[in-house]
């Protein structure tokens, strides 16, 4: 856990698990460690772990089988090369707008970081 990330421990855990799913470090059918074990090893509140697992269950990424544990239900794939290229072009267009509006690179980065943070929080609240 990184106390300086500005994200709640719950969102950090969600991010770490989705990251592992994206990189296929976790595969369909893999069993996740128990809430108790994660809480003990990372020294974090068990409710935080439970909340992160539930969040990922609602997204269909994990499935909980009572009595046996929590398992990976779906892996995540990154965007296709085509999507990635289109997104990059859109971002470059946006950066040009930002430059025209007088934002320097640092302001862009600050705005980007802040927007992502707010977006993640809003998403978490909405789900």
């Amino acid at each position, binding site marked *: 856990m990184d*106390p300086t990330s500005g994200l709640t421990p719950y969102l950090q855990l969600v991010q770490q698990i989705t990251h592992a799913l994206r990189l296929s470090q976790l595969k369909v059918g893999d069993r996740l460690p128990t809430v108790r074990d994660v809480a003990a090893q990372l020294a974090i509140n068990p409710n935080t772990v439970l909340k992160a697992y539930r969040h990922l269950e609602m997204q269909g990424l994990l499935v909980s089988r009572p009595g046996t544990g929590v398992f990976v239900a779906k892996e995540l794939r990154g965007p296709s090369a085509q999507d990635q290229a289109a997104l990059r072009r859109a971002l470059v267009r946006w950066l040009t707008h930002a430059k025209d509006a007088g934002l320097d690179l640092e302001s862009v980065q600050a705005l980007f970081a802040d927007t992502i943070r707010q977006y993640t929080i809003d998403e978490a609240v909405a789900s």
Partner: protein
Amino acid sequence: MNVLEARELGKRYGRKWALKDLALDVPGGRIVALVGPNGAGKTTFLQLAMGFAKPDAGTVVAFGLSPRRDAAAFLPKVGYAAQEPPLFRRFSVGELLKMGSQLNRRWDGLMAVRRLRRLGIGLDLSVASLSGGMRAQVALVLALAKMPDLLLLDEPMASLDPLARHEFMGLLMAASAEQDLTVVLSSHIIGDLRATCDYLVVLTRGSTQLAGDMDEIVGTHQRLVGPVDSINAIGYVQEIVQVERSDRQASLLVRMRGPLLDPRWESYPVDLDQIVLAYLSRNANISSFETDLAAEAAS
């Protein structure tokens, strides 16, 4: 529902009030961080809550029971550990367990043995031979073996290094997943509390400065930087906790009740350390606490 409630609670040592007019609620099932500088009254509060000392004013009630008047009903429900656990040094860990099982009506010796095994602490070891970290862990295992509903921990990690603190907290977190527990943990080391405790109480000079859900508190506080002359025009500010200003620029630590919409101001997230320090700085007498934090940062 609140497990522990203090109302107008006061305790005096000689002519000095260590706690005065304290109102504090501890909601059930939470892991509560009790934070404040030395002399804020953390230990005094926990001792009153345990019934070790008698209040000079007001009341403290746990599960509707008075810790002193209803001691017979109260004591089996509560566990306690402090910075220097008073374990008998010539006893072995196994003998401590045996003593615990004979002194307590509620006692889960099996779980205690399992936890000690997982921690790699042998039952035949003598208390004197244990490291500080192990001793703290043994004290916690013993307090948990009572199967308490409420666990009060007074600076249990104060003398531990970061690794031992992590292991202690891991043990506490595992226990709170396994048994139905409300925990109040006093500490002056803030960093460890963010991910472990889900409720925060900041105490200074014997009264409560801030109390509430940990995520909510961290999520609603921000640092805002912007022009001095528009401080009063920022919308959705619930409270300005701290102000640093130069000629034109001001840096504020605020609690927000809505999004920042004013483009003249930039917002930055703040961590728990900064929030706690800001609340403590509202009181003049913070020197000892700042020294602690500085020493911690340097180590």
